[in-house]
């Protein structure tokens, strides 16, 4: 899903920084998050979102939220 926002076509790994490495702007990030929320049927709280930097962080957050649901 993130590939659609990966304009510079860099490899996406768990250590990839979403904002810096992929140069995704903040609006695109918000749209991407909303898509993820629909896909996984979760809400990612804003206060959790601010701690997410890498693809790995994001995956761990989603796994945790799915487990809590």
């Amino acid at each position, binding site marked *: 899903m993130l590939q659609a926002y990966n304009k510079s076509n860099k490899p996406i790994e768990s250590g990839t920084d979403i904002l810096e490495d992929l140069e995704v702007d903040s*609006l695109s990030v*918000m749209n991407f998050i*909303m898509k993820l929320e629909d896909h996984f*049927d979760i*809400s990612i*709280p*804003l*206060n*959790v979102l601010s701690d997410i930097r890498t693809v790995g962080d994001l995956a761990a957050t989603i796994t945790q939220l799915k487990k809590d649901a």
Partner: protein
Amino acid sequence: MGLFDRFGTLAQTHAMVKTCGTDPFSVRLEEVLSPTRAVVDGKEVILAGTNNYLGLTFHEDCVAAATRALEAEGTGTTGSRIANGSYAGHNGLEQALATFFGRQHAIVFTTGYQANLGILSALAGPNDYLIIDSDSHASIYDACKLSSATVIRFKHNDPKDLDKRLKRLEKQAGNKIIVVEGIYSMLGDQAPLAEIAEVKRKYGAYLVVDEAHSMGVLGNWGRGLAEQDGVEADVDFIVGTFSKSLGAIGGFCVSDHPDFEILRVASRPYMFTASLPPSIIASVTAALSVIRSTPGLRSQLWLNVKQLYDGLAGAGFELGPQKGPIVAVHLPNAEIAVQVWHELLEAGVYVNLALPPATPNDVPLLRCSVCAAHTKDELRKMVDLLVDIADRYDLLEPPAKTAHG
């Protein structure tokens, strides 16, 4: 890394914006002549970027009340109400607001920004949920940061998405507090409040409506969107401001919640700020009476809205989705928006320039605010000038040009 290095992108954008010749974020009104006229750069301009929807800033009752209070009680209170005490006017205005909205309780804050900070941060505790519209004003986002609650955004004006998000929280014990706005400040669209109220009832959530831009504008009595949509009973807290229709500065919240008064010793943005000066309290109290006694102001505002919105829409401009006192002209990119804004000011009309990321969907906007005191001629001039400038930048579809001309 330098202190301000992280503002690099912001500094670049600001530099770009200033290349038009005027800094849109530092416009100087050398002389303010009326609610709709001022002198900028030595030239008289029409003010259409003021949020002064009812034009009460020069209303004789408001000015007279403020002058009397200034002379009788001095320039300021020099402290907070919990430390320095309340003046009779503070309590009087709270009583007047409670009566205006038909509520048991009212509390006054020093700014509208602080009203959201003070209410949302106090309502939502660590185990609670603030569920906010994604197009919320900065003061609502900042209030969320100040609160210890979990903050969840739902898609702008989408009750179905709100429903989904509340459903996901069904098993969680904390209070759920939905926050929406009567009129959204950038595009001027209204919340679908009846549907949102339905979702609120379904899940037993609380509902906060920020009527900053809709008080005095919507509803037969000017009580805002909740009144217009007939759902006042579902709205647990109404937040608002004195700096738009009421023509001054300050903020408030009204509610029927039985424990509301605890906020006076629990809400930090209320407790640790100097209270509003007597002159402001007096002018706002007078403005509230004017709104109640002069419904004609509201009808005039809506006639003016219709003239500007229909005029611009008819000429082919893309505008916000709903008619209202905020008329948001969409422009293709920030550079053109800055140029058009600047040319409009040079031609004698001041509007707000709103650029991404402060705008929804990253669309650059010329944000015009309509005033009841605008004349037909002024509104016509605004449309004509905008069409003229847009034509030079080739922004309008050819058939629309023909239709206009």
